[in-house]
């Protein structure tokens, strides 16, 4: 065996082990995470997700907000199930409910859960199914769009409380601030001047095109995470987008799928997947170069790294830095001014960025 063969061999092994890690992580978040947490334990083990469909919608909504329910001695198994579910729902948060329902959709083999499918569903699954289907639709409506989900009235408890406010824990603040200052200088002294020169040299349509190419290439990250979160439609959309944009969009340069077919990209990553399964952000980490992150999103970044085609297409440290750096400079050239105005509006830019990151990620996970 020649040396080049050996090298190929190790290359293949490296890739295989990469996929092995992805599979392992996938299993981890599908099985270990929901079961490892006590409040989700019952939901996933004792009752199938479809049991959620029996619960009247009003109750489901109320239980997400109201606290205590009277303890009623159960009279029939159905009631007992409802009661257990109520208690479960009080404890699980809505994100996990969404996943459970999406899984339930598949388990029950219900027809497409889109709001328009009511009539068709009724005939095929009978009276019981009819109830389930309509409840299911209502629940889907309740949870599908984040705007629908948004509370119109914010309770004073949401903001005007004496308890420490909802924010991300930051025990590493002193060191995070050091790295924040470092990244700030990196931006103003290195990244911005380069991006400005680049912006001057390359017309905007090309820069948008390059950005599209990179994001088209990263399709597996979004597709895999759609699958892991049970967003099967999103998965299909991502595949379709990739096919359309790689062909009609000239290797992803143009976003033909969005312009022609109204298919928006599904912005999913492994950090969000972990969040959907109930993982909190942990603590805030401001990485040098990479910027704001959290424990959860750092694990997410590492997970996505193995699904990222760039990781397998580009070998060698120097080439990797060149390609990733090129992507970064290109992106920055399209958003010069954003960081500047954020900084200008803030009294404490470090806290402003930390909170914006926390809110932004939370909104993404809820979507």
């Amino acid at each position, binding site marked *: 065996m020649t040396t080049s063969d050996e090298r190929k061999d190790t290359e293949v092994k490296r890739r295989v082990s990469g996929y092995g890690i992805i599979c392992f992580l996938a299993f981890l978040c599908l099985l270990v995470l929901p079961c490892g947490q006590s409040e989700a334990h019952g939901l996933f083990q004792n009752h199938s997700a479809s049991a959620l469909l029996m619960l009247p919608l009003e109750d489901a909504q109320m239980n997400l907000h109201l606290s205590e329910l009277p303890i009623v001695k159960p009279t029939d198994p159905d009631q007992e199930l409802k009661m257990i579910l109520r208690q479960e729902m009080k404890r699980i948060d809505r994100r996990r409910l969404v996943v459970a329902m999406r899984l339930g959709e598949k388990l029950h083999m219900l027809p497409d859960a889109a709001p328009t499918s009511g009539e068709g569903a009724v005939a095929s699954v009978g009276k019981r199914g009819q109830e389930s289907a309509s409840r299911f639709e209502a629940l889907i409506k309740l949870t599908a769009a984040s*705007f629908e989900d948004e509370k119109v009235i914010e309770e004073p408890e949401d903001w005007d*409380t004496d308890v420490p406010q909802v*924010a991300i824990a930051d025990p590493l603040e002193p060191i995070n601030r050091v790295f924040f200052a470092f990244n700030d200088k990196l931006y103003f002294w290195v990244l911005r001047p380069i991006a400005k020169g680049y912006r001057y040299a390359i017309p905007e349509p090309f820069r*948008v095109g390059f950005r599209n190419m990179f994001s088209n290439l990263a399709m597996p990250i979004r597709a895999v995470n759609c699958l892991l979160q049970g967003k099967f439609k999103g998965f299909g959309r991502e595949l379709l987008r990739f096919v359309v944009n790689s062909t009609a969009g000239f290797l992803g340069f143009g976003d033909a799928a969005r312009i022609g077919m109204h298919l928006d990209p599904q912005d999913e990553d492994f950090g969000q997947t972990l969040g959907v399964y109930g993982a909190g952000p942990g603590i805030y980490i401001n990485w040098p170069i990479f910027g704001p992150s959290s424990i959860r999103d750092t694990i997410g970044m590492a997970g996505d790294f193995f699904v990222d085609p760039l990781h397998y297409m580009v070998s060698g440290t120097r080439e990797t830095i060149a390609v990733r750096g090129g992507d970064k400079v290109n992106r920055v050239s399209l958003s010069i001014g954003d960081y500047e105005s954020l900084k200008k509006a803030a009294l404490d830019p470090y806290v402003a960025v930390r*909170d914006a990151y926390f*809110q*932004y990620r939370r*909104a993404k996970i809820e979507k």
Partner: protein
Amino acid sequence: MVLCISLAVVCASPAIAGEPTEAIRKITDKIISIVKDPALQSPEKKGEKDRLIRAAAEEIFDREEMSRRTLARHWRKRTPAEREEFMVLFEDLLQQTYIDRVKGYSGEKVLYEGEKVEGNYALVKVDIMTKQETKIPVLYRLKKKKAGWFVYDLSIEGVSLINNYRTQFNSIIMQSSFKGLIEKLKEKVGKK
């Protein structure tokens, strides 16, 4: 097909949009026309342009509600005079930020995506289409007063402006004091 439906929705929305959306639309259109006004483009008209944008923004933003929600638990401990001082400074800061932002306007499309009303509170969802064809979701929170609907918070890409300032102000108050916060605000808006 999808395109047709969404076009129909976009075209139909002016007719069915409720009061909160109309309130936002009125001010948005007004500000866009100020920013685009060729008579206000010259550098010597900068002051007048800023003043007009400021006046338009004052028509829709509820500074007391914004201040109360931003200071949150610290609001209750403040005297009326302290509250007033804070409100004036905070409004200046918001105006400064806001004027900065809208001045960067360069033909972005504003799409009204829907509204939800519950009693005296409302949400209005807007998508801003940039020239680079990226969609920026914006969510306005409004409260109804006698004079009409007023905005007390807006979220851009899920990041609430008021929540963001609340976290910052809380951190500053905890580290120094309310006085310290006022000093920092004065410094920021250039009143020192």
